[in-house]
């Protein structure tokens, strides 16, 4: 399978302190659904930001074929932030963004301000912004956080369809069950890589890192 992302021995510290992540390597193939789980402070978001080009790692390097779409967990904007969904998505992808409209059923909220949307709608818009650049790799930080059952299901179906069409999807989450149930491959991260492989074999590492067992539904 064609590799679209390859990261080698990533190490990063903030302000010269202890490493937040150390010697983390991973690769993603086209159409792969990859999950990263780990407790608070395990370096998940830092890893995602490095892969998304937001943070330059102290050591190691990242190679990506094509473009990367980054979806943060949440966006806090000024209460009266005026930008509409249309403005935000076209600001990223230009005219090509109109394809995203149909894909994500954004017609009804196209002219609404981002600040007026619900948590689920905001998440969909952030995914829409990332997709409007037609990425080969989509990075999602806590894709199911603060979403109700309806939106969780909607996003999951959408991500699976996206990976079926060839986009590599990398999700980081606290939601161990969500990741272990839906990812093709998982990484258990706790500063270093504790485990990488099939979700069915991750139980031991999850128990070690989280201090509890998880039953994959």
């Amino acid at each position, binding site marked *: 399978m064609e590799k679209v992302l390859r990261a080698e021995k990533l190490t990063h510290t903030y302000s010269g302190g202890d490493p937040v992540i150390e010697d983390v390597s991973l690769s993603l193939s086209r159409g792969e659904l990859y999950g990263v789980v780990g407790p608070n402070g395990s370096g998940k978001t830092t890893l995602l*930001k490095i892969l*998304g*080009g*937001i943070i330059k790692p102290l050591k190691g390097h990242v190679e990506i074929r094509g473009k*990367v*779409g*980054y979806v*943060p967990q949440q*966006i806090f*904007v*000024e209460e*009266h*932030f*005026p*930008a*509409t969904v249309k*403005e*935000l998505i*076209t*600001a*990223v992808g230009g005219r090509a963004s109109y394809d995203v409209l149909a894909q994500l059923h954004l017609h009804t909220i196209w*002219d*609404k*301000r*981002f600040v007026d949307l619900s948590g689920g709608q905001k998440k969909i818009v*952030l995914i829409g*912004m990332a997709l409007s*650049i037609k990425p080969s790799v989509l990075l999602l930080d806590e894709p199911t956080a603060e979403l109700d059952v309806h939106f969780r299901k909607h996003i999951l179906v959408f991500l699976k369809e996206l990976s079926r069409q060839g986009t590599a999807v990398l999700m980081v989450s606290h939601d161990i069950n969500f990741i272990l149930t839906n990812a093709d491959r998982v990484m258990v991260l706790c500063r270093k890589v504790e485990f990488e492989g099939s979700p069915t074999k991750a139980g031991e590492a999850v128990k070690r890192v989280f201090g509890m067992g998880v039953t994959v539904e």
Partner: protein
Amino acid sequence: MSEVAVLNLIIVSLTSSILGVPLVLKRLSLLGAGLSHSALGGVAIAYLMGLSPLPTTLIYTLLMGILIYTLSSRGKVSGDAVIAVLFTSGVALGILVLGDHSHSEAHLSEAILGEPFKVSWYDLILSIFLLLLTLLFILRLRNHLTLLCFNEDLAVSYGIRVDMVAYSLLILSSLSIVLAVKVVGVLLASALFVIPAMTSLFLVSGFGRAVLLSSAVSLICTSAGVIITERTGFQPGGVVVFALLLMFMASFLFNQVRSRLQ
């Protein structure tokens, strides 16, 4: 007021109101107040060294603006703390140099209250040039600016050179603040940036529309201010800011009523 002074006041207000929208959205509303007060330091240095006040203050304020953003964006010191330090340093320098000699007190008074009637063609040309630069900046980099104000991390991930956009905004704002200080004084300069921007943000959706409405609010209030000044002889700066405040209050109330009805 002479035609040159009126035109200059309108153009400076217009430029400030355009730049005010991204400044408010980037949570840099206090930057205007900080830079306008620190401009007093520039006036003091110009007086002390016998230099021409406008270019010296322009350079000084520009350097202060770059310093504020560099320190706060690198996370070395929090943004409001940097602004507070430079704000008070500028005022202290101004009082120290200009407030102690009877012949320099006029400079201090002019810097604090502005000198809207002493406008030269040189000032007007500078104001027009800055307005054109600002329009070019907003039109060319509107999408980048929207994303920068939305979320810096996201903007970086889309390959936007956020430092370039942020510093451009900062340089234009610093220059605009110095021209605003000359027209309405240190105390009122930041009002020309923040009040029309906030007024428009209460009323419209869309970044582009917010910039347009902010400009319109500024144009209406400045024109009204000029007419009232002509008839009453009040200081134009105070009248314009008062007109802006009335618009702000009206839009705030309208927004409150609209929110309750929805």
